[in-house]
C-alpha cells in the first residue's frame, strides 16, 4: 500500500511538470491554432540558463529562476515573431514543419553552445519529508512541483476568466477577425500568449531538472511530446484539461513503470491516449466542435 502511494505521489509530481508544459502548449494552440513543437526545447533552454546562472554566475536560486524565465520569455516571443508570425495565413502543414524546424534549431544550438555531454543539475531544493516513520518519503521538490503547478493552474484560470487581457485572449482564440473589430490587437495578444507559455516552460525546466538532474540538448524533447499528449488527452485548448491530462499522464506513466515494465511505460501511456481519443475525440474536458458544413 505504501509502495503504491509512493508511486502515485511520484506520478503526480511528474504529472505536474507535464501539466505546466501542457498549459503552455494548450494556450498557444488555443490562440494560434498551431502546435508549437519547439515548446519542449524551451524547457531545455530554461534548464541550462538556470543551471549556468546558479553555477557560473553564482546567482541565488530565485534570481536564477527569474533569469531563466526572462530568457525563455524573450526566446518564445522571438520564435513567434520570426518563425510563426510570417506564416499567419499559411497552410497549417507549413507551420507544423516550421515548428519542427525550430525545435531542431534549438536542440542543435544547445549542442553547439553547451556540448553533448550531460550536465549534472543542482536541484533547487533537496531533502525529503518522511511520513509513516520514514516508510513513505516525499521529496521536497515533489511537493514544490505539485504546489507550483496548482498555483499556476489557478492563476491562469483567474487570468483568462477575469482580466481584460485574458478575456481578449479567449476572444482571439474564438474569432480573430471579430476580435480585431473589437479593437483587440491580435498580434500582440498572440505574442503575449507565447510569452506566458515560455515563462511557464522555464519553470517546468527548473522543476523537471531538479527531479531528474541530468541536462542534455534533448532533455526537453520527450517531456515536450508527453505534455503535448497530456494537452490532447485533457482536451486541447482547455486549461483545466491540460492540468488534468498532465497529472493523469504522470500517474499512468509512474504506475506503468512500477507495475508493468519500465521499457513499456511509454507504450502504455500512448495506448491509453489512443483509447481515450477513440471514446472522446475532443479529449477529457475538450468540447467536440463538428466541422462547419
Amino acid at each position, binding site marked *: 500500500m505504501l509502495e503504491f502511494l509512493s508511486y502515485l505521489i511520484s506520478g503526480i509530481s511528474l504529472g505536474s511538470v507535464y501539466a505546466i508544459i501542457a498549459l503552455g502548449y494548450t494556450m498557444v494552440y488555443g490562440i494560434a491554432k498551431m502546435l508549437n513543437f519547439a515548446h519542449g526545447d524551451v524547457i531545455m533552454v530554461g534548464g541550462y540558463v538556470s543551471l549556468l546562472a546558479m553555477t557560473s554566475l553564482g546567482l541565488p536560486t530565485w534570481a536564477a529562476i527569474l533569469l531563466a524565465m526572462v530568457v525563455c520569455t524573450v526566446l518564445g516571443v522571438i520564435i513567434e515573431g520570426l518563425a510563426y508570425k510570417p506564416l499567419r495565413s499559411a497552410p497549417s502543414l507549413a507551420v507544423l514543419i516550421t515548428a519542427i524546424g525550430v525545435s531542431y534549431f534549438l536542440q542543435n544550438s544547445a549542442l553547439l553552445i553547451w556540448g553533448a555531454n550531460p550536465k549534472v543539475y543542482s536541484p533547487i531544493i533537496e531533502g525529503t519529508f518522511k511520513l509513516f516513520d520514514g516508510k513513505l518519503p516525499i521529496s521536497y521538490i515533489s511537493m514544490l512541483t505539485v504546489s507550483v503547478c496548482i498555483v499556476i493552474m489557478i492563476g491562469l484560470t483567474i487570468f483568462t476568466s477575469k482580466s481584460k487581457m485574458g478575456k481578449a485572449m479567449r476572444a482571439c482564440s474564438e474569432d480573430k477577425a471579430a*476580435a480585431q*473589430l473589437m479593437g483587440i*490587437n491580435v498580434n500582440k495578444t498572440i505574442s503575449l500568449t507565447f510569452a506566458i507559455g515560455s515563462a511557464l516552460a522555464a519553470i517546468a525546466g527548473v522543476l523537471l531538472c531538479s527531479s531528474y538532474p541530468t541536462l542534455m540538448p534533448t532533455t526537453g524533447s520527450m517531456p515536450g511530446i508527453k505534455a503535448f499528449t497530456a494537452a490532447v488527452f485533457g482536451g486541447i485548448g482547455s486549461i483545466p484539461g491540460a492540468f488534468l491530462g498532465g497529472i493523469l499522464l504522470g500517474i499512468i506513466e509512474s504506475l506503468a513503470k512500477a507495475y508493468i515494465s519500465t521499457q513499456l511505460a511509454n507504450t502504455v501511456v500512448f495506448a491509453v491516449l489512443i483509447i481515450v481519443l477513440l471514446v472522446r475525440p475532443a479529449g477529457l474536458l475538450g468540447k467536440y466542435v463538428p466541422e462547419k458544413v
Partner: protein
Amino acid sequence: MGQILKVDNINVYYGAIHAIKGVSLEVNEGEIVTLIGANGAGKSTTLKAISNLLHPKTGSIEFFGEKLAHIPPHKIVEKGLAHVPEGRRIFLQMTVQENLEMGAYTQGGKTFNEDIDGVFKQFPRLLERRKQIAGTLSGGEQQMLAMGRALMSRPKLLMLDEPSMGLAPILVEQIFDIIKELHKNGTTILLVEQNAQMALSVADRAYVMETGRITLSGTGAELAQSDSVRKAYLGG
C-alpha cells in the same frame, strides 16, 4: 451635416478575383445609408474594406477626413467606426456580459457602467441573459448582442451587415425598430441588407450594388419607387 465616411473609387481583389470595381460612396452625419444588392454583389467585401480587414488595391477611404489605408483594423475601432459583421460573429463561448465587455475593449472603462446600462435599456433581453453563454442565445438574441457589443465602443458610425439575416419576420421588424431608434438617438448607420424593402423604408439614402459596382443611388424613397429596383429587389 458633415461628412463622416468617404469611399473613393476603391478596387478590392480576392487573389485574381476582382470583387469590388471602383466603388464610391459616402455617409453624412446623422444619416442611415443603406447598401443593397443581390448575393455576391460585394456588399460585405465593401464593409470589410472600410474596416481594413481587406485592403483595397487602389482608391481611398476617409473617415472624418483621415485616410484609413495604413491603419490596422483594431485601431479603426478606436476612431469610432464599429462593424457588426455578417453572421454576427459574437464570441459563442463567452457570456453575454463578456461579449459586451469585449465591445468596450477600446474604452477606458470610465463609461462602462453607463454604456452597458444603455445597451440593456435598448435590449432588455440581454439583461435577462447577462450570464448566459452567447452560443446558447437564439438567432434574434445573438443579433441583438452583436449590435449591443458594437454600441459598447461608442461608435460615431455603425456598420451593420445584414442584421435581418435568418430571422423570422417579427424579429426583422424588431431589429429595424431598433435601427430606427438608434438613428433617432443620433447614431449614424451604414446598413447592408438583402431585405431591400425594409432597408429602403428606413434609409435616408441608398446605393444599389451589382457584381462589384454601384449601379444606382438616391434617396430611400426614390429608389423604392424606381422601376429597376422594384423589379430586381422588391418583387415587382
